[in-house]
């Protein structure tokens, strides 16, 4: 087990010292390889707080998180021998607004900064920058440009390339496609899926987009008011009961499929996790 949450709680303090429980009693395991997880939940449900425990950016106020064998807990916080750097390299976390972490003069330097920081040679870091800029769907001409003149979507890709360049085992992305146009969003999701498939890495994506969840996820975590209320497959998630109780938005594919089935008085057989599948099935039914 690469990441293991044991009864984790986390309390924020607000302005008048009042506590605010963002996570309550979370127990959860994430494997080093082979997982494609989406983490969903309403605004303020604790998703980002949970993600920030995955690479020890936050220390639980209750319970423990084990990350690649390193125990992170309140009691252990003062331990001077506790090395967090290897954890940060193994679990790459891409923040909600990664574009604000760009600071170097060129895109190339920005991408190379992370790996160099973890002891990779200059030459190797540059090689990785070249490789990763392509992986996120930009070309090498970007490497010499200033990151500050890029559009929001381009900045996002550059910052993701920077995390990928550290070659983490596990990639945790906090709403990585928000703000991207549909073409950019689909392209980037394919990138994450390829990283997962070809490099056999575990990918965790925080998202509000149920279409992403339905089309890509193998496993879904649902947060609600600081609690983990669902940990399972996406296909079972969107039952009428769950949708109602947890205020979930139904993926377009499922919504439109159900509406068409009702309108035509038919039942479409089998799963349709993407547009092409659904259209093909509707075509069959109507011919």
């Amino acid at each position, binding site marked *: 087990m690469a990441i293991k949450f044991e009864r984790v709680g986390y309390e924020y303090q607000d302005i008048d010292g009042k506590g605010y429980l963002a996570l309550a009693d979370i127990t959860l395991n994430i494997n080093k390889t082979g997982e494609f997880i989406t983490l969903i939940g*309403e*605004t*303020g449900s604790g998703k980002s707080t949970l993600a920030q425990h995955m690479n020890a950016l936050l220390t639980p106020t209750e319970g423990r998180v084990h990350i690649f064998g390193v125990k992170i807990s309140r009691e252990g916080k003062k331990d001077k021998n506790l090395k967090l750097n290897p954890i940060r390299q193994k679990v790459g976390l891409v923040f909600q607004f990664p574009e604000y972490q760009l600071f170097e003069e060129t895109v190339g330097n920005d991408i190379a900064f992370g790996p160099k920081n973890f002891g990779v040679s200059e030459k190797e870091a540059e090689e990785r920058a070249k490789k990763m800029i392509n992986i996120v769907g930009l070309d090498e001409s970007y490497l010499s440009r200033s990151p500050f*003149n890029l559009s929001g979507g381009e900045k996002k890709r550059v910052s993701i390339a920077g995390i990928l360049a550290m070659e983490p085992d596990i990639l945790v992305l906090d709403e990585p496609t928000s*703000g991207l146009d*549909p073409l950019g969003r689909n392209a980037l999701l394919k990138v994450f899926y390829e990283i997962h498939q070809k490099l056999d890495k575990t990918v965790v994506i925080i998202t*509000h987009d149920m279409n992403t969840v339905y089309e890509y996820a193998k496993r879904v975590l649902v947060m609600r008011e600081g609690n983990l209320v669902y940990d399972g497959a996406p296909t079972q998630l969107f039952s009428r009961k769950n949708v109602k109780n947890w205020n979930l*938005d139904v993926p377009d594919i499922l919504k439109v499929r159900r509406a068409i089935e009702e309108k035509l008085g038919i039942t479409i057989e089998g799963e349709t996790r993407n547009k092409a599948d659904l259209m093909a099935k*509707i075509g069959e039914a*109507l011919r």
Partner: protein
Amino acid sequence: MSVIEIENVSFTYHGDKRALDNVSLSIEKGEWVSILGHNGSGKSTLSKLIVGLLKPQSGTIRVDGITLSASTVRDIRKRVGIVFQNPDNQFVGVTVRDDIAFGLENLQIERPEMIERIEHYAKKVDMYPYLNKEPHALSGGQKQRVAIAGILAMKTDVIIFDEATAMLDPEGRERVMEFMRTLNREGTTIIPITHEMKEAVMSDRIVVLKDGKVLKADKSENILKDKETLERSNLELLLPLEIMHYMNENGIDNPSLKEFLWQLSLNG
């Protein structure tokens, strides 16, 4: 009467390619016009130009007949409010209450009126229990609702929503859409800037930008079905309309299903 008139506006960021290239566009009072386009198409640049955060290198912008310039920018901002995509960039207060108050202080609203508006709009966006909270205790979506409350409290004639729902959860997004509907019914001119087709279905007109130019501007129902135009600007058809397109391409004739799909697309 046009509330916003943009004439031959061009803008280039320092040392970069042209962000807007000779754009002309006018928006009527009370109209709901969505501006769509790919990342980097110039749509956010356009919104910053309208509120005077950027200055065009050529062309003119008029709001309510007032030509935008350094001396009129304050008048313009009393008429046009803007909600940005990133809530962290627009959270200027120490607490939620301060943040909503900020715009009102600039308008020199009397204190009792100010307090009333702050509480009213905090309730409207469901942030009333958080009035004394600091931004770090809020999630991105919550901060965004505070930003929206701040703009609503200023009661401007025009509100630009610059990808304002991008960070919200589905329920939060639906609530913002509901604000747009209510405000538009009450006469506010609504200009969502987005690449989410679902946000554009309610609009009267849609303007599609591509590489800094107006690719097409037309009634919503025409643009929503226009796969070619949308895809040229990295956008996609709404799923029911994609299915309708598939039916047309494959010679599947079922008028009642097509009508059903059209209605379905309008309901988001």
